């Protein structure tokens, strides 16, 4: 069916994008900024500067540096983190999985909540219930997530004391960050589901199905839901990539959650060039793989799509 060819093509595209981004990041860090200036105090002597420049290999031609940089990446050597003095790979592996789980949890929460909300709203468009859902979903999109997080913390942790304010460890620590992160995709998704649902319900086949005597409930679930799955999938996949690519940082900071987003924020505060390069590389690969995965699932949901 050409599927494997398509996947191969996409993997090639992924490689291309990751390579491009790596080169871009290399040039940003090596040409726009000078690591030596950042790492050494202002009063450093010229001899100190020269020593560091040589140690970092910054005195060699730029293309040679680029080659070393890329070939190190290719074999999985991301160098040492300046800030933590550990291999970058190790630092990232400490923090990345926990964030991936957190964002996955948030995605699940958003899907589980958004689909019923969208359906309920679409069932009687214009009703009071529909309005409530619309307001709620718009708020989810418009309110800054870190602020939502702070408000949830104020209510559920500070005032009610049901959940811990910050930190990690138990499942209770996951609840507030995950719910906070889920608001934005939930809002988007509820709107998409509502829109698609109204479209589908008005579509001709819905009329035919009613004429055949199918009850409305089974109609909603059998026909329309399958169609909205494809739209939801793209939405969730996109959002997952954005959250992992730094959007979740603010929320993780709010809840003192030592995840990948928090790590990105700390990396920048500490001006840790090699670590940031490695982070960009990891995110680029994960983003491309998730895009590929959504495309494949898309084809599984929608038989009209063949690659």
């Amino acid at each position, binding site marked *: 069916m050409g599927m494997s060819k398509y996947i191969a093509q996409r993997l090639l595209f992924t490689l291309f994008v990751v390579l491009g981004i790596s080169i871009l990041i290399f040039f940003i*860090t090596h040409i726009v*900024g000078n690591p030596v200036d950042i790492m050494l105090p202002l009063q450093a002597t010229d001899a100190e500067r020269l020593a560091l420049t040589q140690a970092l290999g910054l005195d060699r031609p730029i293309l040679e540096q680029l080659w070393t940089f890329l070939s190190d990446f290719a074999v999985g050597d991301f160098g040492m983190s300046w800030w933590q003095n550990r291999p970058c790979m190790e630092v990232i592996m400490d923090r990345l999985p926990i964030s991936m789980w957190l964002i996955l949890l948030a995605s699940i929460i958003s899907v589980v909540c958004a689909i019923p909300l969208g359906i309920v709203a679409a069932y009687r468009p214009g009703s009071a219930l529909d309005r409530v859902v619309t307001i709620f979903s718009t708020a989810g999109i*418009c309110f800054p997530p*870190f*602020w939502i997080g*702070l408000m949830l913390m104020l209510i559920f942790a*500070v005032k009610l004391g049901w959940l811990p304010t910050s930190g990690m460890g138990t499942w209770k620590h996951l609840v507030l960050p995950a719910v906070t992160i889920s608001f934005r995709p939930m809002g988007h998704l509820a709107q998409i589901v509502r829109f698609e649902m109204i479209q589908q319900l008005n579509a001709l086949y819905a009329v035919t199905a009613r004429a055949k005597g199918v009850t409305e409930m089974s109609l909603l679930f059998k026909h329309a839901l399958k169609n909205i799955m494809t739209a939801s999938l793209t939405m969730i996949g996109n959002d997952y990539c954005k959250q992992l690519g730094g959007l979740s940082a603010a929320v993780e900071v709010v809840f003192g959650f030592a995840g990948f987003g928090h790590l990105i*924020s700390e990396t920048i505060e500490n*001006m840790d060039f090699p670590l940031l390069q490695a982070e960009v590389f990891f995110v680029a690969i994960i983003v491309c793989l998730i895009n590929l995965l959504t495309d494949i699932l898309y084809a599984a949901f929608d038989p009209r799509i063949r690659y």
Partner: protein
Amino acid sequence: MEQSKKPKKTSLLRRFRHNKPALFAGIVLIIILTMILFAPIFTNFGPAKSDLANRLTGPTTEASMAVGVTQPHFLGTDQLGRDIYTRLLYGGRVSLNVGFTVATIGGVIGVVLGMLAGYFGGWTDMIIMRMVDVWASSPTLLIALTFVMILGPGQKNLIFALLINSWTLFCRMARSQVLIIRSSAMVESGHAIGASTNRILYKHIMPNIISPMVTTYILELAHFINAEANLSFLGFGVQPPDTSWGLMIGEGRKYLTQAPWIVIFPGLMIATTVLCLNLIGNWIRDEFDPLAVKL
């Protein structure tokens, strides 16, 4: 919102009045903009004026203890006794400035590239759209953050970093509009009935291009106000003593339990502004494109 009856031949203002949420949003937005632009008229305090005697006071209608000032701290004070209400007005300048600048420059770059791609087609189109595709599947926020790290935090650098991701949506929109209009029988039909080129341009082509562009601009503006808040919250935007809504939340979050108002009000400002922009953007999209499904 109205769903069944199409508006009859009425003026723009009338149509605007008919959509209550959009009307409300428009009024609120004008109030916010006016107060921010003419901030010194609306407050007696300075944004950085600290008043340590009154630090962390809650919202109140009582006059402050400082000598010679009669205006109360309506919305309370922060950890240094600075008036929250005043800081909201001045911080709003930064937030809106960043939003407008990024959306405008990004919009111009994106529209120009999109129109080039749509108009010339072929190689130009392929290269530009490939760039957009690659951009769409790259971690642009991280790349922006890399710039912030190297250039250092600050308003200008933040604008520069946000610009990285600001042009793609405009580019896509502009390209599709150009393609639609270029191959359009609408233009030919106009010529066939003897309409002048000016009439076709101003009555048919421009409105068809402009309304989706305005919608995109407004929604992107809202998006970048949020993005600025996000990065300023993390401390990568404007630096103290200047402030923005996002930074106010970032600075105030340590006092969440004692003085939640420091955090609550800036958040409400961001939310209100972004919400109003969204309502207006959606209204424009629905109103000027009868093909869009009215819900």
